[in-house]
């Protein structure tokens, strides 16, 4: 989201943190960028990680003479994002995951894409590119000196346990994903995932495009998160270009984003019913899902809300009459199904105490969205980093504390009700006559870089964009919420679960492979 709320005064703790980065680090904007010499990176990471409420939101690199390593931190209590930039001259940099474990997946990805690695020499997994990716494979930087350690870091299967391979081709239309299940027969001992089967090199393909042309591909990177990802990307481009979307366009985006949340939570409800064998409940949730998709088509012209977001505004104006007439019935369908499910003991028994994720694990891994909120973390960018109209229409953040599948389901249902309330309030703000959907003036500049974010149905979606002097992309980093939350999936699966719990846990996470395997 483009943060257009009035600047928030720096808290004393934030001032102390920023003072350590030199006199240029202060700032009242929502995003603070600081340069950190590689020699001081380890100390800086320790200092930021110890800051109250700080979480590592993303780590990525950009090619150049020396590679630039960027760490994005969410300082949620301060309503800020902090970006550290470090130039990496050699082939290695201080290990980040030794201090912030949430960085390990990105350390692996950066090794595959840019050939630089953490200095501690620990084995790195293959997470991004398929095993056949040789030196000539399209990469964002140069190829690594050697391949990652097999397809997974070496591990030992002891006792009577054995590995049960599952996927990547799975039932019906489920995305390609390989599970390595380590089991002693029924109980799950360990689980690891191969997510690279769907790698499409989206970030590589975006280079050289204008942000507007790139938006088309960004929307299709993760079809079930088109609005959230497109908003994050558009906000990043707008920050780079110095564009400010008009309020009416922001209201239209927010309506689309809440509609996207509604249909995704309905789809997750149907998937939960399917995974627990409750076929009639699944049908009831799918009726609601279909009605919500038709609401999307009636309001914005596309069932999956493609083509709504534009750079600097929106392309589609919501049909508010259709919204008012169709949404109550569609949501009522979901609510009736959900109420019936919440009074079905055989269903709730399968959800309760299944796939437990502790708050400490969610915090340590930097998880986001309903998965994090179900553990007790009240993190929601609509509340923590609000853009208009969210700042004007306060949000009741849905939180649970048991961290199991039932907690995630409860959070989704509460959020769905909150989305309907928000749509009603924001719909009034979007109805002003004669308001523009795009800014009157074009971009004030062509070159620059910027960070953008939006609270998608899966949690914080983030993007970072750098543009050259002709306004074309030199580096676009896409970080859908799925990138963060898959790293919590294996933790949840290992919490004393059996084989048949895995589909239930996967449905409750409601992630996509496309979102992480860009």
């Amino acid at each position: 989201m483009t943060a257009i709320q009035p600047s928030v005064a720096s808290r004393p703790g934030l001032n102390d943190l920023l003072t350590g980065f030199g006199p240029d680090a202060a700032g009242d904007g929502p995003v603070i960028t600081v340069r950190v010499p590689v020699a001081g990176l380890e100390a800086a990471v320790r200092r930021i990680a110890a800051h109250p409420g700080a979480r590592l939101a993303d780590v990525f690199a950009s090619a150049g003479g020396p590679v630039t390593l960027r760490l994005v931190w969410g300082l949620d209590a301060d309503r800020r994002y902090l970006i550290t930039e470090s130039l990496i001259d050699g082939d290695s940099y201080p290990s980040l995951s030794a201090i912030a474990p949430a960085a390990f997946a990105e350390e692996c990805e950066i090794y595959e894409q840019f050939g630089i690695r953490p200095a501690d020499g620990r084995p790195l997994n293959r997470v991004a590119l398929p095993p056949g990716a040789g030196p000539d494979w399209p990469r964002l930087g140069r190829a690594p000196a050697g391949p990652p350690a097999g397809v997974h870091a070496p591990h030992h299967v002891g006792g009577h346990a054995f590995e049960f391979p599952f996927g990547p081709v799975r039932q019906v239309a489920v995305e390609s994903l390989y599970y390595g299940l380590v089991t002693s027969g029924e109980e799950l001992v360990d689980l690891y995932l191969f997510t690279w089967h769907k790698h499409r090199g989206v970030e590589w393909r975006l280079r050289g495009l204008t942000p507007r042309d790139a938006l088309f591909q960004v929307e299709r990177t993760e079809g079930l998160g088109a609005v959230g990802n497109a908003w994050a990307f558009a906000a990043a481009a707008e920050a780079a270009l110095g564009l400010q979307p008009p309020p009416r366009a922001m209201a239209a985006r927010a309506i689309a984003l809440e509609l996207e949340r509604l249909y995704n939570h309905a789809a997750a409800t149907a998937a939960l019913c399917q995974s627990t064998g409750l076929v009639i409940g699944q049908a009831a949730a799918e009726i609601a899902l279909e009605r919500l998709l038709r609401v999307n088509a009636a309001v914005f012209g596309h069932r999956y809300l493609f083509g709504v977001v534009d750079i600097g505004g929106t392309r589609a104006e919501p049909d508010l009459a259709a919204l008012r007439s169709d949404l109550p019935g569609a949501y009522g369908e979901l609510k009736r199904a959900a109420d019936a499910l919440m009074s079905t003991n055989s269903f709730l028994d399968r959800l309760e105490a299944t796939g437990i994720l502790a708050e400490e694990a969610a915090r340590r891994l930097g998880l986001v969205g309903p998965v994090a909120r179900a553990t007790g973390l009240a993190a929601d960018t609509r509340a923590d980093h609000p853009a208009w109209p969210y700042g004007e229409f306060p949000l009741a953040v849905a939180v649970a504390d048991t961290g199991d599948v039932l907690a995630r389901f409860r959070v989704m249902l509460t959020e769905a009700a909150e989305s309907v309330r928000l749509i009603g309030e924001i719909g009034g703000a979007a109805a002003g006559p004669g308001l523009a959907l795009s800014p009157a003036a074009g971009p004030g500049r062509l070159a620059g870089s910027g960070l953008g974010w939006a609270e998608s149905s899966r949690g914080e979606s983030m993007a970072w964009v750098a543009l050259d002097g002709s306004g074309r992309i030199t580096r676009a980093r896409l970080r859908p919420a799925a990138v963060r939350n898959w790293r919590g999936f294996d933790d949840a699966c290992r919490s004393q679960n059996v084989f048949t719990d895995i589909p239930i846990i996967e449905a409750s996470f409601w992630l996509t492979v496309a979102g992480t395997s860009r």
Partner: protein
Amino acid sequence: MPLWTLRGLRRGVVTTRYPARPDPSAGLLPTPPAFRPGALTRDLAERLATVCPSRALARDGDVLVFDAGACTACGRCRAEAPEATASSGEFELAATARAHLIKRIPVRPA
């Protein structure tokens, strides 16, 4: 569980009679483009081929080649040339041979 059975029976049939009768929601589906040959020029055909992300469009001399089997109904061609394209409304694309999905549309030289 019996309550769920009763609930299902009470909710009744929600599926439509498609394909015996049209589904009313079909009008909201994105569909492949239809082209107005009189409005197509060589230059325009070239532009359309450039904007098509799935390479469903190509110019072959004075012919625009449209592969409906490669079209994802994204709408980019309609946005590029609304005077020469429209939504076909056709979503039943099954064919008995791949070649039946490829259409050749004449274009004006200029």
